[in-house]
């Protein structure tokens, strides 16, 4: 194994290989961050909808989750990238005005956003449902409207309860950005493969990528553990009564 391959210049002259990989990493992190924000907001809304007492809301929420859970991620990427513009002329027109890279980035964020939101919705729902029924009753008994009850009583505790599974979702999201390779986005995995193909030093390239993903995973883990400690409620052992 020879590490100076990373310092070698890329044939097109855009910099050294390590810089290529770094630029790939930037796209990975950018897509992951934007997708996470979208997924968290959407997922919370859908998760809450599934715990309300309104039948049609629950049904819509369930349908939403089932839709995104039962289709493989790569197929969802193809749906957003090819099928949606193919079916809706307005979208196709808009897409052609975009820079190809921007098209890929937007597709990746939207696709991963919806995909991950379904999983977050599942976590939020189970978090709220694991709270004792009495909490909801107590909130209503003191005169809070359902909206206020969710905002001040149910969600604050539910979010704390689901920090561990949310940590897994963050890690899954980062790993799933690699699938954007399928639509040509030059994120980290794409660059790794490219480096392997052009220098034939697959081992070094993949080893570097592996190391980067592991470090990201560890960092995400540490960050979530820190958040969990910061928001811990004094005296609360965890779990419902």
């Amino acid at each position, binding site marked *: 194994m020879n590490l100076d391959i990373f310092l070698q210049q890329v044939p097109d002259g855009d910099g050294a290989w390590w810089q290529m990989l770094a630029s790939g990493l930037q796209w990975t992190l950018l897509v992951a961050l934007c997708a996470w924000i979208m997924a968290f907001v959407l997922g919370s809304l859908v998760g809450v909808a599934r715990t309300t007492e309104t039948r049609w809301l629950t049904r819509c929420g369930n349908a939403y989750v089932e839709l995104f859970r039962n289709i493989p991620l790569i197929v969802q990427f193809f749906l957003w990238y090819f099928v949606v513009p193919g079916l809706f002329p307005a979208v196709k027109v808009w897409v052609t005005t975009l820079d190809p890279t921007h098209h890929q980035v937007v597709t990746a964020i939207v696709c991963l956003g919806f995909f991950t939101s379904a999983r977050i919705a599942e976590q939020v729902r189970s978090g709220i449902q694991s709270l004792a029924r009495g909490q909801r*009753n*107590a909130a*209503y*008994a*003191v005169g*809070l409207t359902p909206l206020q009850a969710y905002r001040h009583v149910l969600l604050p505790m539910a979010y704390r309860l689901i920090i561990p599974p949310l940590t897994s979702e963050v890690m899954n999201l980062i790993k799933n950005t690699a699938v954007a390779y399928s639509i040509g986005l030059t994120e980290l995995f794409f660059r790794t493969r490219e480096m392997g193909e052009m220098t034939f030093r697959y081992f070094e390239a993949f080893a570097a990528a592996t190391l980067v993903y592991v470090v990201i995973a560890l960092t995400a883990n540490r960050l979530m553990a820190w958040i969990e400690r910061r928001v811990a*409620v004094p005296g609360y052992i965890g779990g419902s009564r």
Partner: protein
Amino acid sequence: MIVIDNISKWYGSFQVLNNCSTRVSKGEVVVVCGPSGSGKSTLIKCVNGLEPFTRGDITVDGVSVGARETNLPQLRARIGMVFQNFELFPHLSVMENLTLAQIRVLGRTPEAALAKGGALLERVGLTAHAQKFPGQLSGGQQQRVAIARALAMDPIAMLFDEPTSALDPEMINEVLDVMVDLARDGMTMMVVTHEMGFARKVAHRVVFMDGGEIVEDAAKEEFFATPRSERARQFLSKILSH
């Protein structure tokens, strides 16, 4: 004040409440007792609309609980409820538990809410614990805070759903003392409980339920001295013998 009129409730095909009727007048303390599964918890939860009912109606201070137009959150703000499992909000401090609804529902200023909360904490003897979290308090302390939380809304009536059933024996009295005080101050109270000592002390009337029905509804002395039904007699003998 509280009028329960022919309430029936089914869970699917299972009937939980069967034509229950009774009333609680202003300033009255009514104790609801009965074996477990008799529907007493369900009935009291119907009074503030936490449980929907299938037939009949309940009115509180003239407002119908079952009517579609009724603004339930507003009505509930005027009725205080204390739960068997205390149900304090674990992520908020004791003081925040007391002020949350005052600010969000009644629209009081934070200062007014804090003042009220402080006064009530003093009344239940827990001023020192204002900044603690529910998880750091004992059961008896939590329940007293729960009572204060309900009182902070200046309710016209208080509902108690087995307030001492989840407490260790040595803490039951501290909670009952607060409730006795409340009763003596003239609060309208409907209390589901097994604590017959409390009933004897401050109740005006006793309602006995069994199998989803109100079997007896009598003035306190009458109920204890000469229970009319066999079931009530059996229940009393079991409860009072220990």
